[in-house]
């Protein structure tokens, strides 16, 4: 019964040593976290973006469906823990529509081993490949949704300079991020005004409704054009000129960098593991 102890103590030693070292480390980390206060979502947005990108790429490299499924389950658990599961599941519907379409198409057309189901036939290879694609989309979308619900677009835009994005592109992005919401509200107000004047009556046919929507769109574009003149004047009054370049780039925190490197190696290891299996 105690043969493992008398003849092969190595496993026991390894388990004991690793358990107690981890116990001490865990207690230390727990105390440190309590002292520092609970800080959720404090990982640098650049690391979050890089890791998400790397993880999505690695998912597309996977040959086995169960790794994406495990990643999806982990993401769902995280979403539940962060109490964003409703938003997470709502957003998942859009990518899954296309994934289901691909799954069906592959199942009905791809492969050589046919399974006759009476009226229709499906292919084993197509079902396997389609399911792999479906799980990849599920996992990738889960990661993307977790990223976007925990990081605002402004946070990411601020850090785009660190990724060496062209200055003009960042300036256009910042303007767009700021005015999308404004124009969205303005469009709603215009539509409401048009509706109150019977612009969207049910009696109108396709052409009538389309004419109304398009005129709203035209009005919004003209407003955007007029507003851009005012914005330009406001920029000039704040000493803006085309050669002005914002050069301050926030340095990356050492702890975040280490975390990023560890996670990157973990992801690469996962891909290697998937390929070896």
């Amino acid at each position: 019964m105690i043969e493992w102890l008398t003849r092969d103590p190595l496993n026991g030693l390894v388990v004991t040593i690793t358990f107690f070292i981890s116990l001490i480390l865990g207690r230390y980390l727990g105390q440190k976290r309590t002292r520092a206060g609970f800080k959720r979502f404090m990982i640098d947005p650049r690391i979050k973006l890089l890791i998400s990108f790397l993880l999505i790429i690695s998912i597309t490299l996977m040959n086995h469906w169960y790794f994406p499924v495990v990643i999806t389950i982990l993401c769902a658990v995280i979403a539940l823990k962060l109490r964003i599961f409703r938003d997470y599941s709502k957003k998942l519907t859009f990518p899954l529509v296309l994934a289901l379409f691909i799954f069906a198409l592959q199942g009905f057309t791809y492969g050589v081993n046919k399974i006759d189901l009476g009226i229709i036939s499906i292919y084993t290879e197509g079902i396997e490949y389609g399911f792999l694609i479906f799980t990849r989309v599920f996992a990738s979308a889960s990661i993307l949704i977790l990223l976007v619900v925990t990081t605002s677009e402004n946070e990411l835009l601020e850090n785009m300079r660190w990724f060496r994005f062209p200055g003009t592109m960042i300036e256009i992005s910042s303007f767009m991020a700021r005015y999308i919401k404004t124009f969205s509200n303005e469009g709603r107000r215009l539509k409401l005004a048009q509706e109150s004047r019977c612009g969207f009556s049910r009696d109108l046919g396709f052409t009538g409704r389309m004419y109304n929507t398009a005129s709203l769109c035209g009005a919004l574009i003209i407003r955007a054009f007029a507003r851009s003149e005012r914005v330009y004047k406001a920029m000039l009054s704040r000493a803006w000129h085309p050669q002005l370049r914002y050069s301050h780039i926030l340095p990356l925190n050492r702890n975040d960098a280490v975390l990023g490197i560890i996670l990157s190696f973990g992801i690469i290891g996962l891909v290697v593991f998937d390929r070896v299996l």
Partner: protein
Amino acid sequence: MKSSLLDLGGLNIHISDGILEPQWILFWYAISAIFITLGLRIINKRIASDPSYLPRISLIGAVVFVISVWHIPVPVTGSSSHPVGTPLAAILIGPFATAVVSSIALFFQAFVAHGGLTTIGANTFSMGIMGAFGGYFVYRLLKNFTPLWFSAGMAGFVGSILTYLTTALQLALSLNPGNVVYYWKLYSLGFIPTQLPLAFAEFAFTAYAIKYISGTKQELISAASHGKDNFTGTALLLMIVIASVIALGAYIGYLKGGNMAGTDGVVEAHAAPGVNPNGIGTRLMARFGEPLGFAFVGITGGLVTGYYWNAWRKP
């Protein structure tokens, strides 16, 4: 939820993360990057001569993004969907600037889970490059001898069709590389129930919108060459015409039962008769060799000719 962007609805054909294979992700990023770089150069030139261009392009970009997520009624199906929007943007701010703006719009759309991060390159190519350039080309071609509303409408129609055909091609290339043409047709057919009626809706939408704008603020439509000189215009026109002729010829050949293998077999039999057909070199060549080789020749030839163009023209 932290994202401040509006929620979208309806079916979209943006490719999500996890669908494309990594080599295709990189390929579409590289192709889109070329157009975005050209677009940024044109935008920077315009900003240097007219600084008010920066807020103008950004605000019009923002409004086109907002419009592209509006629901428009779709004929036949009775449902509603959102327009592509890039042909309209190309008419207003030019196709190169549209490529830049649509790549940014796609980044923002990823925040509402439309499309994805790794597929921004592929989606920019289908929507912001093929949709915008195709639509703009049709608009410029028709506007001199048809009413403005019709040329704009056709731009919307062609832009929408090209966007979904390109998306179908991207899916076929990545998912079924062994039988691209067959799966391209299948994916295209799969999209038809939603995308064809939407293309008609896009026709009406773009036509009415441009008609309204031209009646209210003519200078927005008649804005000069969008920063593109005659050389660029002629080169792009030639590129589209020659590519269309080749594509049409290939399609006719395919309809007549051709396998699109060309004369490869004959050339290979004479040039390398003893080659191992299952060797890694042959397999790599079959997958990447030819397109890469031709791309290398095209890039080198184009760069050298373009570089010395002015020197040759002015002795």
